């Protein structure tokens, strides 16, 4: 698969934007601007980026509790995201959802989700709608290694297979579900092997290599658009931070952490860009600076936005 300079630089920009967003969220959480739970995507940026590069606005995704990266990669607006994290009325959900529920249905983003594994059948449903309407759009479902043990995984992948739905199940295997590491929560090493239980093709790729992710997803999306049914992709990756902000991560060994930090997907891509001479260090820094500026602007927007009114509590429960 040939990938142009522009594409690769686009990946870089997206990944850097996610990273910058997350680092800022970390800071804002520590400073008390963000209430509740925040699960950061730092270290996993290549997955959302490589996958979503294959999607258009008409395609769908379902996301997770660790959803900021998916949203940004799918085109979500960072100012509305930031405002939502702070519970502001200008946020994506008018302050009603917060980090775990950010959504943009118009962009096909069917929401982050606080229930591990809940997106799996929902994604099948969105893909069902694509097929029912005889359109060629598709749905991508992001979920974790831990989520692959939930009953929803089994039921959703089986349903997707039986109905031959245009859905791509993307497992972000960061080796842990909170403190529970993969060797303790399952007895298989490649989660993609589980696709065989449904007669679905499954592959495992280096989730820190955005190109590898992109290519695997391209293949799967192509199959889906052609009506050839669901696929599963396992992306092996690592979260740099605790499960949520505040988790010191005592269950991880320092050695393991160190080894993975070296495989940082952004550094990996930077090396490639420099090696291919697609960009100079300065140019990369310029991209980083732009990202920082965008995020700062989003923070300003969020900070200057008003809170909801108490009366809003009872709005939006029902559509009428």
């Amino acid at each position: 698969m040939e990938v142009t300079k522009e594409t690769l630089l686009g990946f870089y920009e997206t990944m850097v934007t996610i990273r910058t967003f997350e680092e800022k969220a970390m800071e804002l959480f520590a400073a008390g601007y963000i209430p509740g739970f925040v699960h950061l995507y730092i270290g996993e940026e290549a997955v959302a980026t490589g996958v979503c590069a294959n999607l258009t606005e008409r395609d769908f995704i379902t996301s997770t509790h660790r959803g900021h990266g998916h949203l940004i990669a799918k085109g979500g607006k960072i100012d509305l995201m930031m405002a939502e994290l702070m519970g502001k009325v200008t946020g994506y959900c008018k302050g009603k959802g917060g980090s775990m529920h950010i959504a943009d249905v118009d962009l096909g983003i069917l929401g982050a989700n606080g229930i591990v594994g809940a997106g799996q059948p929902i994604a099948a449903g969105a893909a069902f709608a694509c097929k029912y309407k005889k359109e060629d759009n598709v749905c991508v479902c992001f979920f974790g290694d831990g989520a692959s043990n939930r009953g929803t995984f089994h039921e959703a992948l089986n349903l997707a297979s039986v109905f031959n739905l245009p859905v791509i199940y993307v497992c972000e295997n960061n080796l842990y579900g909170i403190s529970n590491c993969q060797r303790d929560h399952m007895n298989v090493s490649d989660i993609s092997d589980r696709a065989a239980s449904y007669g679905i093709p499954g592959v495992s790729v280096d989730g820190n290599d955005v190109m590898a992710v992109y290519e695997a997803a391209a293949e799967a999306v192509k199959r889906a658009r052609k009506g050839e049914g669901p696929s599963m992709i396992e992306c092996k990756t690592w979260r740099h931070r605790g499960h949520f902000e505040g988790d010191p991560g005592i269950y991880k060994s320092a050695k393991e952490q160190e080894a993975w930090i070296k495989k940082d997907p952004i550094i990996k891509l930077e090396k490639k860009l420099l090696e291919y001479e697609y960009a100079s260090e300065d140019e990369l820094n310029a991209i980083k600076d732009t990202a920082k500026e965008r995020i700062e602007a989003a923070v300003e927007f969020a900070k200057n936005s008003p809170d909801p009114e108490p009366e809003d509590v009872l709005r939006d429960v029902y559509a009428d």
Partner: protein
Amino acid sequence: MKTMTYVEALRDGMRFEMNKDPNVYLAGEDVGIFGGCFGQTAGLYQEFGPERVIDTPITETAIIGHAVGAAASGLRPIVEIMFIDFTGVCMDEILNQATKMRYMFGGKAKVPMVIRTPCGAGVGAAAQHSQSLEAFFTHIPGMKVVMPSVAADARGLMIAAIRDDNPVMYIEHKGLLGVEGEVPEGDVIVPLGKADIKKEGSDVTIVAWSAMVGKAMSAAASLEKEGISAEVLDPRTLKPLDIDSILSSVAKTGKLVIVHEANKTGGFGGEIAALVADEGFDYLNAPIKRVTAPDSPVPFSPVLEKAYVPGEEKIIAAVKELFA
């Protein structure tokens, strides 16, 4: 008007909307060629084909979960859960996805879906196939709950439920499926949230729904003979509840008896009693009585099942207590 059974009427409601709106489809276990466990969907597969009447694997979680995704993406699914007892399997999808999505997204999603499911005891199906679980669903913000008691409502509420832009639990009672009634034809709905006064009366208000409406009506007939004039009110929709109609009735009668087939503790009768003991306290001149199943699982043996399901005698006895 046309005479049909309750099951024909609810099926006709589905058929009517499926003919009208191509985004309406039906999915569930054995809803296709098999026609549903109690024949609810018989003939629809033949009429609308496998793309709109869809057999699923045994996979309630994915049935409801997929419906949420499909509804949020522009379709209007009707999904069947073969027995209401099985909603435990997909409760997360009902409790945390279907009904909360709109709110969590700040009003920026619509989840129009109907969950059709039979409830009720009386057919010897025992503890895991006979429950009346409506109270669970009434407690979930974002949900609507309808429980038709007669054929006309079965059809009219079905059409209204499908047209509603929110998740609706449509709970049909197994014991009513074969009961005939007059049903209006064409585009006639029964609006969600509107009670029906089945019989006017002046001495006591009996609120009953689903299969209990019939029992309340027989009880009222017997009471009439003994000089007690009972008003029988069927809320038809439990959520939203037409509390105004209940309060008006109690304002007139001063007495309230609530009848439901569900277990007493935590049943929806408590909610109605509480609303009236608050907003209608001044109308009351006697205790509020509930006639319900006892707090046990549904037993198998016909003798026990008969003792379990509230009957006419128990309603009569509860009413008479208020006049003692």
